């Protein structure tokens, strides 16, 4: 069911108008005050893709459920969502967190102290400030920060590791690659983790990435894993043989020429050899290429 055209305007949802409070959060990415306020709401609930619909407890921001995209699933989610007793601290706590988050947007000098603040938006603003100002402070705490189950936060830590990380984060990254949950966007989290492993990974990371090189050609994770393995082999010559074997088996089925070219380029980089890429890329060509390395 189309969300904006059919579900949300549906007269069947009218009985729910007074059962819940309806908050509309819209991003235009303009960087205006209203857009930054909308972004802070997204950060609070870990939203990184759209549309998203959820029910939350106003006292503690606990997510009580996701409504789905049908009237039935919406009604069931509302029926199940039960809020606890209202907290007298809820409003002052939220206002204080908002003040601190806005202050960090304007003056990031206290970012390091706020990196492990209990409020997710304050933490995120601190992380964003440090990513630009002092990325080493993030790298040194990366394992602990990656354990925080908040998608935007983890994405930002991973982006920092992709540029500034080192081998000390490899184990934490392999763990996240295998178990991205809880996440609203586990595939995107895996993609960014694979990129970070391209910089930080070592011999043990090769097997962690191997399986993802044979995924769907339409999934960016597949090509990202191929390139991450090539980057690891460049830094760790002892892995060249294993990476070559894995990549040679990663040539996709015919019809996926772009991915095939990326696998091929990665193999040339890893081995230092040049092998002509065949046209057309058909099954016979694929089999020849797999045996070429």
């Amino acid at each position, binding site marked *: 069911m189309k*969300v*904006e*055209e059919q579900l*949300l*305007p*549906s*007269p069947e*949802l*009218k009985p729910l*108008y*007074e*059962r*819940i*409070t*309806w*908050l*509309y*959060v*819209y*991003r*235009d*990415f303009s960087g205006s005050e209203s857009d930054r*306020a909308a972004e802070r*709401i*997204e950060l*609070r*609930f870990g*939203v990184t893709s*759209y*549309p*998203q*619909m*959820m*029910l*939350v*407890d*106003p*006292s503690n921001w606990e997510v*009580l459920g996701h*409504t789905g995209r049908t009237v039935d699933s919406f009604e069931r989610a*509302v029926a199940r*969502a039960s*809020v606890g007793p*209202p907290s007298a601290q*809820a*409003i002052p706590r*939220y*206002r204080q967190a*908002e003040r601190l988050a806005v202050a960090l947007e304007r003056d990031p000098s206290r970012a390091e102290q706020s990196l492990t603040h209990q409020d997710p938006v304050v933490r995120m603003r601190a992380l964003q400030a440090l990513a630009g100002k002092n990325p080493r402070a993030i790298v040194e705490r990366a394992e602990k920060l990656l354990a925080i189950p908040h998608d935007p936060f983890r994405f930002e830590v991973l982006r920092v590791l992709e540029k500034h990380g080192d081998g000390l984060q490899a184990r934490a990254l392999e763990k996240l690659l295998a178990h991205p949950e809880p996440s609203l966007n586990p595939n995107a989290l895996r993609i960014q983790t694979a990129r970070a492993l391209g910089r930080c990974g070592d011999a043990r990371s090769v097997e962690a990435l191997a399986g993802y090189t044979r995924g769907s050609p339409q999934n960016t994770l597949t090509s990202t894993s191929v390139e991450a393995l090539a980057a690891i082999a460049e830094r760790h010559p002892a892995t060249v043989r294993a990476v070559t074997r894995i990549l040679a088996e990663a040539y996709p089925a015919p019809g996926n020429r772009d991915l095939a070219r990326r696998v091929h380029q990665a193999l040339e980089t890893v081995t230092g050899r040049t092998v002509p890429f065949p046209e057309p890329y058909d099954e016979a060509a694929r089999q020849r290429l797999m045996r070429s390395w």
Partner: protein
Amino acid sequence: MRTWILFLLLAAVAWAGSETPPKGPPWVRALDQAQAEALQHRRPIFLYFTKTY
């Protein structure tokens, strides 16, 4: 050809998120307002996140 271009432009507009919320529900636009209302009535907040396309 022109008809197809016009169709694609109209489709893009139709698919785009909008600053105006969908008709029907009694929307609020600020989280502090939503929190105060929801606490007063002891009910959950429903959040709908969308963006411009």
